[in-house]
């Protein structure tokens, strides 16, 4: 008789894989990216392409240099590059976009241990770095229909017709203009069960409530700026946001609060990405705060760090 294969239980696996999940996120991001490309033409396509390609290359080269398994196959670098590209103005210099991708992948992700170990959203941190480094270019936009260069977005001017915001006919970043496409992508992700609607709902709900109380135009506050992209695709990132339900809720509310305060009291017109990155740092604390008590667990005094004498028992086991 021939030999049999011995495997450990379970002998079956669900269809889910990291690559599949990332693929769906890319699919969800595509409508908004395409809408941006249609509005702004070739220069937007080039910025997106450069940021994606340089993110993937940066991941591959850095993995090779630090002799880690090359993980570009899981497509997470593509998402980082795509989100960063979508947060850049259409006429942004290409080498600066590439620099942003390198900051995101090498400094934020790879140096902290690769996928799943980054402390904050790579695209978010890179975006903040670019804003600080190249303030002039990062705040120069173009009006899609006329092609006029402007330094005023609906957030600064105080609003725009809702239709223009929904369809992306306002000055803004490549991927944040068309609110309809972003909402479409987010609904798809929620429907596929890939992201929990808790964080975006809490995030947007808090901003809406505060805007209402503060006497601002609620709908234009929600639809303009990078709020939708940050709420749907950055605040729902797996690695850098809490994994418990209450943690997600708290995370969303705090992001909303921060966004509102930065928008109206801070020096920058744009607050959502700042808010997400700041809250990323609180993720471990939120997880610890909101973790569920295991079923039937007996509350015992937490085992404290034992004294040196007892240590060898741990290491030998």
């Amino acid at each position, binding site marked *: 008789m021939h030999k049999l294969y011995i495997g*450990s*239980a379970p002998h079956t696996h669900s269809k889910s894989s990291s690559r599949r999940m990332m693929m769906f996120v890319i699919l969800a991001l595509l409508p908004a990216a395409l809408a941006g490309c249609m509005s702004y033409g070739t220069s937007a396509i080039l910025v997106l392409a450069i940021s994606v390609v340089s993110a993937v290359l940066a991941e591959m080269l850095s993995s090779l240099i630090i002799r880690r398994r090359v993980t570009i196959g899981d497509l997470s670098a593509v998402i980082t590059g795509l989100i960063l590209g979508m947060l850049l103005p259409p006429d942004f210099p290409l080498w600066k976009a590439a620099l942003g991708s390198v900051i995101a992948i090498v400094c934020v992700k790879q140096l902290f241990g690769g996928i799943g170990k980054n402390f904050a959203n790579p695209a978010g941190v890179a975006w903040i770095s670019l804003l600080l480094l190249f303030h002039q270019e990062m705040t120069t936009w173009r009006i899609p229909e006329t092609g006029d260069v402007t330094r005023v977005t609906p957030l600064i001017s105080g609003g725009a017709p809702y239709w223009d915001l929904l369809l992306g006919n306002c000055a803004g970043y490549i991927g944040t203009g068309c609110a309809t496409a972003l909402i479409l992508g987010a609904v798809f992700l929620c429907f596929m069960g890939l992201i929990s609607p808790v964080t975006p709902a809490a995030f947007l709900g808090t901003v809406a409530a505060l805007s209402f109380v503060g006497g601002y135009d609620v709908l234009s506050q929600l639809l303009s700026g990078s709020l939708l992209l940050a709420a749907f695709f950055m605040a729902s990132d*797996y690695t850098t946001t809490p994994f418990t339900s209450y943690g997600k809720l708290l995370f969303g509310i705090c992001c909303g609060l921060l966004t509102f305060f930065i928008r109206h009291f801070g020096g920058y017109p744009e607050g959502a990405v700042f808010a997400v990155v700041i809250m990323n740092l609180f993720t471990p604390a939120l997880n610890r705060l909101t973790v569920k008590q295991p079923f039937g667990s007996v509350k015992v005094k937490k085992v404290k760090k034992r004294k040196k004498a007892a240590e060898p028992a741990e290491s030998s086991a």
Partner: protein
Amino acid sequence: MKRLNGIRLQKGKRAQNKQITVLPLPKLIRIPMLMHMGEPCSVCVEPDEYVYVGQVIGKPESEDAVPIHASVSGTVSVISEYTMPDGQKIPCVEIVPDGLQVIHPDCTPPTINTRQDLADAAKNSGCVGLGGSGDLTYRKFARTEKMHTLVLNGAECELYLTSDLRQMLENAEEIISGAAMIQKIMKIKEVLIGVQSNQPAAIQVLTEAAEKQKGITVCPLPAVYPQGEKKVLVYHTTGLVVPENQEPEDIGVLVLNVSTCAFLYRYSQTGIPLIDRVVTVDGNAVPKACNLQVPIGTPIIDVLSYASCELDLVKQIYSGGGMMGVSYPAFRASVIKPQNGLIAMKNIVKPKEPTDCIRCGKCLRACPMNLIPTELDRAYQQRNVRMLTNLHAGLCMNCGCCSYVCPANRPLSETIKQAKALLTNA
């Protein structure tokens, strides 16, 4: 009451409409001396000795064992060695059946009046948990605590397995009579039978059979894996939480599998000990999935051949269901008492290379015990006993939900199993 987490498995119970059929006697029976959780029995027959059906061939050496009986009448050919799936070597009695199935004269119905009688009867019948656990049933009756509830486990949440389901559909009267017997002797107030809500036929048959009896109710359970685990079952039927490091019996809830209950009733009527059981034969190497009544000790090759399995194509065989089954290292194995399924696969899906955790949190949303498998995994990689204790690694029951859902293909369930071993040795 909040429902515990779990996962929805794909539909895969091909044998659920197949009636229990009796397997013809094989040419050789090999009975290993360890078929329960505990110590092996010692052989008490000689080669060339004639044995009857129900004759004791393995005597328990300690309290951690129950006797093992001959499942056929015939001649003992040799006392050989049997390799358990975990590599342990156990003595094994090989019997050549004569086909007459002469029953041993000692097999007479026991008189059961007190709790002690019930425990003795369960011990002498060689009864173990027939739902797959293999724990010693008599231990549960021999406990001194007052029991207030009897929970019968008919959940059978595993992939493929339908042996308990067929018992419920075909032997509902025996299950109910057994429950009534235990209820009377143990002075139990309430009997609850847990059946998954996706088996309405079984729920109906049991409800009709239970109408005549007082205090027996059928509880539909959510069709989510794992419902058959003791603590989950007790919570979903009675609402009671079994504390960590305790058994349901510690809080006065007696848990028995439906097949075990039906067997105990049959034993109380006939006195024939545990000599056969129902096994679900399935898997993609088995063209016709079926439920077979098999004498204990039948070589698995005979069972698979009867189900017209293409033995040459088989790559992997495991005992039990797809989520918790144990792989056989070789074809040379026998059907044992707690074995509820025999699954033969012709195309094995080798586990994919695990990648780094992306912290998606799927595992903790799947864990019925509210543990954090990914943190346990990390704590075990660091061999951090303190962290494993604080994360309550001991609560894990290895249901496999976390490994099943993990998108990074991490063998979480396996790692936590090793972590538990580390905790017990530390």
